[in-house]
């Protein structure tokens, strides 16, 4: 199957007052049509920047992109602002983490949805409005007619996220980028929204790039997972492989620190010590070395390459083959 989106060696750097920082450093991954690819990592790993780089939403005055973002046979990074505007919302849509502020408070839901539809399609206002109502209905909002006339503050968080999804799907996009779409929602609403995304993905046959820090969500909806750490892809695998035999110590740490309903509450949850270093002092060798419990002296000597372990599974760790075998053998125990 040909890929919908191919990100090749994407590098996004910002000019700051303290010099240039590279928030995404050589990320490569693909999304196929109908596939859900998750990007996971802690805060500050470059997940959101990766998403925003695909659509070039970052401040053009201080951001430099390099590498390739291949979409529909073309490299989006060579596109200018006008050409990108035709892609955004039309062929690639995005939904955001905070549905509370992602809608303009001064316009009704109907006006905003209609506006989004009219931005890319030459149809009459009446038709756009009726399509907007249909979309709201599709996303499972009760009484879409009435909701169309309401303002964002009159809707709950879950309903607003449904409106955002309706807006994102308004032009039948090929790719949907979801930047932590369920983080701000409570657990029941979260699972409803995830279900909705999967249903709509099948109906619209779109690929989804799903950004999250919640491994539970990843297990629920993703086909493949890309783990990022400090701007780099550290592991990328099929979702089953990732959960059954994680190869990178960071992935293992993330999995171990996820609470399990069966785990003994009197035992402290394992954590990854320390925090993500700032982008101003990126280590020379393995970027995770300072927090890694498997660290060896040679980890700090030189940058580590992404190593292919098996088909579709790669990891950026010099010990990953060994660790991978360990966890494959002790499957079930490591988790």
């Amino acid at each position, binding site marked *: 199957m040909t890929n919908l989106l191919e990100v090749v060696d994407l590098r996004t750097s910002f000019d700051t007052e303290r010099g240039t920082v590279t928030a995404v450093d050589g990320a490569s991954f693909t999304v196929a049509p109908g596939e859900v690819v998750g990007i996971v990592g802690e805060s500050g790993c470059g997940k959101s920047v990766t998403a925003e780089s695909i*659509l070039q939403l970052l401040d053009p005055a201080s951001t430099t992109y390099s590498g390739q973002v291949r979409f529909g046979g073309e490299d989006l990074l060579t596109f200018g602002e006008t050409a990108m*505007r*035709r892609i955004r*919302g039309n062929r690639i849509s*995005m939904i955001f*983490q*905070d549905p509370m502020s992602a809608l*303009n408070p001064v316009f009704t839901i109907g006006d905003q949805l209609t506006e989004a539809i009219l931005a890319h399609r030459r149809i009459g206002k009446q038709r756009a409005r009726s399509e907007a109502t249909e979309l709201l209905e599709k996303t499972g909002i009760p009484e879409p007619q009435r909701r169309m006339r309401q*303002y964002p503050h009159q809707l709950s968080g879950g309903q607003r996220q449904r409106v955002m999804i309706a*807006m994102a799907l308004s032009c039948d996009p090929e790719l949907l980028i979801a930047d932590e779409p369920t983080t701000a929602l409570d657990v029941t609403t979260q699972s409803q929204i995830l279900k909705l995304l999967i249903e709509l993905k099948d109906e619209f046959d779109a690929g989804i790039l799903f950004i999250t820090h919640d491994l539970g969500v990843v297990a629920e909806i993703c086909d493949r997972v890309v783990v990022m750490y400090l701007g780099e892809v550290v592991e990328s695998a099929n979702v089953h492989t990732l959960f059954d035999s994680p190869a990178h110590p960071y992935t293992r740490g993330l999995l171990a620190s996820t609470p399990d309903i069966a785990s003994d509450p009197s035992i402290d949850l394992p954590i990854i010590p320390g925090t993500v270093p700032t982008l101003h002092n990126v280590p020379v060798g393995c970027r995770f070395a300072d927090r890694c419990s498997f660290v060896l002296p040679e980890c700090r000597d030189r940058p580590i390459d992404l190593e292919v372990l098996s088909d579709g599974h790669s990891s950026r760790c010099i010990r990953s083959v060994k660790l991978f075998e360990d966890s494959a053998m002790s499957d079930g125990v490591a988790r």
Partner: protein
Amino acid sequence: MTDTMTVGSLNRINKTYSRRSMFLRRFGAHKLAVTGGIVLAVVVLVALIGPLLAGDPLALNPSQRLASPSFEHPFGTDNYGRDTFARAVAGARVSLLVGAVTAIITSVLGAIVGLFASYNRIADAILMRISDGLMAFPAILLAIAIMAAMGQRISNVIIALSIVFTPYVARIVRSAALVAKEQTYVEALRSQGASLFRILWINIFPNILSPLIIQATFVFADSIITEAALSFLGAGVPPPAPSWGNMLLDGKTLIYNAWWMTVFPGAFIMSTILAVNLLGDGLRDLLDPTFNRRK
């Protein structure tokens, strides 16, 4: 039966919470704002219909010079025998016209400059340095300089005041727009392929309308005061056309002989400015959610 009743009461609840009626109800409860509004309405009414009743503000009557207030001349007459009431009422037209037109021009220019500056760093640097420069002059001195350069006409008073006050409005708009622009909905709009025009004018503009309206009321008050000061200094509305400021100038030398020549225009200026400021403060309390509401 019961069903229709429930639906009916639900509709009523929805209606009660519509934005406009809620604003009007809160405005009604804000006593100072209501007072300001009423006083301003009276002044506007006087300016509109007063000149029709009060007679000619320019008619000289040498036999009635410096007459004290009487039934015939409720505010007395000035040193040329002109009716002070007729002049004060005609002056109200001039003052309100100058204030209103200046407020409108500065709002439009300030909105354009401020929004543009908020979105383009180079434009921001240039426009804000120009406004810093303009704001570095005391408003009245800058206005006098502009009037001296352009000549004494009411239209030039408006132009001079607009130049003086636009930077203040532009600053407010710019800072409000900088805040609005960081909201997720702006990024969401960009992710939908919205053009800069659509983002700035259709989506951000309504969100900065409240501070803009509030600032416009203060510009309205300030330009009435500044116009009065300019005219008092002889650099504003040229005589013999009456304005509150040049009436004060005429009355100044005669203040011990004819107090009514200064007291009445002074009272008009004071009550109008007070009314506009009360209204502006009230609007700020009601429209600006970040401004702490008392009670």
